């Protein structure tokens, strides 16, 4: 019964947390956020400025903007507005496990197929100002699968989460996590084996591409005996990486393993879009900058495993100073809720400016994900993905007040407070009903309480 009650509460919560439907349909004609300190990230700060949002896009930004009749006006005086935070490495909103680690190469698996729009972490991250995440496979095997770039449109279905038009990606992984496969008898069990697996996969993909190329040429020449090669779902994403159509996101910690991947990529003529975590990126900033690989890292996590022993909190700052595009990622539903404070660490450790620090969680990850034409800064024409903060977003004391995606409010701290009250009342009602329908000691069929359960002493809640 308790379980049922709980499920009911969850269900109720889910309904309660969905934005009101009348707001969803097209949204209001226009929204104006008024009199806030606007941190545009692209062109400095506006001490007392306003933003006009029309049709989900930023229409105007400046000390003052036109206020169309019928526009919803949000008074944000004394508050701060930033672009929505982009978390370029996340595992939220995924049903079941994030790894298909049974094989070394599982590029045929797709996160898009298992998106879970009901994951409560979506809502929790909205409350931390996150609007877009790159949702990836784990790092159990050298080639994990294809990723999904999503917007945290809480209340929408799985398809509604997708960031339409975002470039597809493929997750690779190097180092310790991959090696651990060896303990289950799955190859590889070393960094040598990891290179071998990835190299073999790309050789196969290249061969696969040439078989198709041969076929296409023959078919184009009118050769009616030409037979198309078998479609290979494992090699297709790899072929897309080789053609530059799919972004290679490569989990790597140590400088040596990242160098291995850069050599391999140069040899095969593709680009490592980014190193995920890149804890030793600061050691090879020169090589990463030359290749054009992004360093998507943590702020100050270290020593939790051997390959994180040389991790330093200055990493993002060193990479930035040495010409690497650096971003901060969460890799965790908990950390994602305070990426603004992760960015603050880059001011403390390494002395980045506040704008450079904010860039690590907005425009830089947008550039990494190749969605910087759409999001990542407060500029006219971009999606109205915005966060209104109580204090400067790099202050420990800041609390996100409202989070907007495409001009719609997906998190509002006032509504959250009201919802809590509703839920608390709902819980009381449900509990009262539960006590009425299932008095203690009675074995209710279908309540999930078996005969043995009756002997369990009632525990106070």
């Amino acid at each position, binding site marked *: 019964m*308790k*379980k049922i009650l*709980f499920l009911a*509460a*969850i269900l109720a*919560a889910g309904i309660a947390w969905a934005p009101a439907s009348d707001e969803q349909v097209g949204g209001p004609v226009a929204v104006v956020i008024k009199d806030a300190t606007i941190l545009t990230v692209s062109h400095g700060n506006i001490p007392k400025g306003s933003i006009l949002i029309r049709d989900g896009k930023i229409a105007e930004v400046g000390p003052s903007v036109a206020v169309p009749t019928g526009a919803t006006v949000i008074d944000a005086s004394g508050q701060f507005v930033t672009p929505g935070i982009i978390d370029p490495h996340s595992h939220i909103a995924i049903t079941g496990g994030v790894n298909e680690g049974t094989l070394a190469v599982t590029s045929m698996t797709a996160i898009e197929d298992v998106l879970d729009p009901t994951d*409560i*972490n979506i*809502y*929790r991250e909205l*409350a931390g100002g996150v609007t877009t995440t790159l949702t990836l496979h784990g790092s159990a095997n050298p080639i994990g699968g294809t990723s999904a770039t999503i917007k945290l449109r809480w209340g929408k279905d799985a398809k509604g989460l997708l960031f339409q038009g975002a470039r597809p990606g493929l997750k690779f992984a190097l180092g*310790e996590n991959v090696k651990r496969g060896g303990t289950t008898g799955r190859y590889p069990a070393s960094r040598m084996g990891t290179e071998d697996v990835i190299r073999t996969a790309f050789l196969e993909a290249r061969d696969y591409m040439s078989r198709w190329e041969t076929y296409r040429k023959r078919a184009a020449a009118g050769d009616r005996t030409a037979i198309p090669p078998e479609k290979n779902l494992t090699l297709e994403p790899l072929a897309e990486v080789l053609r530059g159509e799919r972004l290679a996101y490569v989990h790597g910690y140590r400088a040596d393993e990242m160098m291995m991947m850069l050599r391999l990529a140069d040899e095969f003529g593709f680009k490592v879009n980014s190193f995920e975590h890149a804890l030793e990126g*600061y*050691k090879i*900033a*020169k090589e990463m900058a030359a290749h054009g690989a992004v360093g998507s890292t943590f702020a*100050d996590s*270290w*020593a*939790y*495993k*051997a390959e*994180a*022993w*040389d991790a*330093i*909190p*200055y990493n993002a700052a*060193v990479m930035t*100073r040495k010409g690497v595009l650096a971003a901060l990622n969460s890799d965790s*539903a*908990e950390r994602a*809720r*305070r990426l603004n*404070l992760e960015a*603050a*660490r880059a*001011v*403390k*450790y*390494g002395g980045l400016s506040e704008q450079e620090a904010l860039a690590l969680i907005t425009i830089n990850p947008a550039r990494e994900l190749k969605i910087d034409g759409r999001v990542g800064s407060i500029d006219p024409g971009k999606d109205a993905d915005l966060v209104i903060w109580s204090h400067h977003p*790099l*202050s*420990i*004391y*800041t*609390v996100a007040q409202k989070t907007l995606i495409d001009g719609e409010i997906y998190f509002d701290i006032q509504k*959250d407070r009201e919802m*809590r009250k509703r839920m608390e009342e709902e819980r009381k009602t449900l509990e009262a009903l539960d006590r009425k329908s299932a008095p203690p000691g009675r074995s209710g069929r279908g309540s*999930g*309480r*078996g005969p*043995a*359960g009756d*002997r*369990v*002493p009632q*525990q*106070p*809640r």
Partner: protein
Amino acid sequence: MAVLCKRILLSFACVALIAAAFLLSAADNRAYVIQNARVYTLSSRGTLDRASVVVVDGKITQVGQTVKAPAGAQIIKAEGLEVYPGMVNAWGNIGLTEIGSVDVMSDTTDLGAFKPQLLAFSALLPSSEHIPVARVNGITSALSAPSGGTIAGQAALIHLDGWTADEMAILKAAGMVMQLPSTGGRGGRGGGAPTPVAQAADAARATQQQLAELAELLEKARHYARAREAAPATERDRQLDALVPVVNGQMTVFLQAQTARDIRSAIDFAKKEKLKFVIQGGREAIRVADLLKKENVPVILDSIVSLPSRQDDPYDARFTLPKELAAAGVRFALTSPSASDVRNLPYEAGFAQAYGLSHEEALKAVTLHPAEILGVADRIGTIEPGKIADLVVTDGDLLEIRTQVKHLMIAGKDVSLETRHTLLYKKYMDRK
């Protein structure tokens, strides 16, 4: 041969002379004046502007707008800077583990269920790389606790500076770490799987049996204590020896409990056994706040920068816990337990303030309150004459991330701000 001997003797004498001279000069430098700063005493004197702190031989001797500088004291100009008591991390395992995932680098846990004789102090690594990394953010002392089993062993409270564990120890035996067998079931989704009903009866029985075992061990220790008192020749028992101060109510017991149910059971048990105890963990402490207040049981909280434990909890359930406990009159300390995360202790307090705790209470939750709970508030936790000089000088609010620590003093010694991380930073910034 005789000549050689003479030379050796001579050089020995020489070394001794040099050492003596060095010690003397070091002793001369043991006086400091931190001048003209904003001093957060966290004592009844509150916050003092343009004040100075005088340190002599490891202790604070004067605090105030007008102080008398001892002759030869080193002056630390701190105009525009702020001085705080060093922070106290009241839970964790710093010094017992270097790289968490590498077994041989961890000494946090030993075999067996009842290990009261084990001392964290005996396994502390004074050269741990985590120690400098933690202290340069203003954490000057930390508890290092063993884990695992019903009785994990004894925690040590250490200064985050020193050549040996002996030099570092504030309390070699700061308390006994105990975790009662859990009654199972973490109360809902996201908080661990509830025990299946069919197994609940078995689990409850097993729990009762384990509790009985623990009670019996404590009872044995009481008999043992009386026997030893009556007949000092009574054969010694390492395990029971270690439990004597526990059953006598002299040694603090850290009772680890997270859920409301487990906290309640822990309090029941500890009262029955007449233990001197605190609750450690306390994720659901607010659900038993009335009981905690009534029994005056303090709580050493785990990191509050955490996800809610239940899926249907408010998103900020853990962030608001300190504010709610303070409002309910429950005493608590904030901690950042993971060895590599100790440096983030001030941000635990910052988070607590962002979600409703007052600035003063937030500061005290990482200084005075942990010192009180650990029973060392007479020595650390505030800036007052007579206390150990654990001081942090910053260029701004201690709890803000962008703030920089400018000087660090541990037991009256001016400690370097260099760490493994600053060294690697310099090394690779210089790479051409």
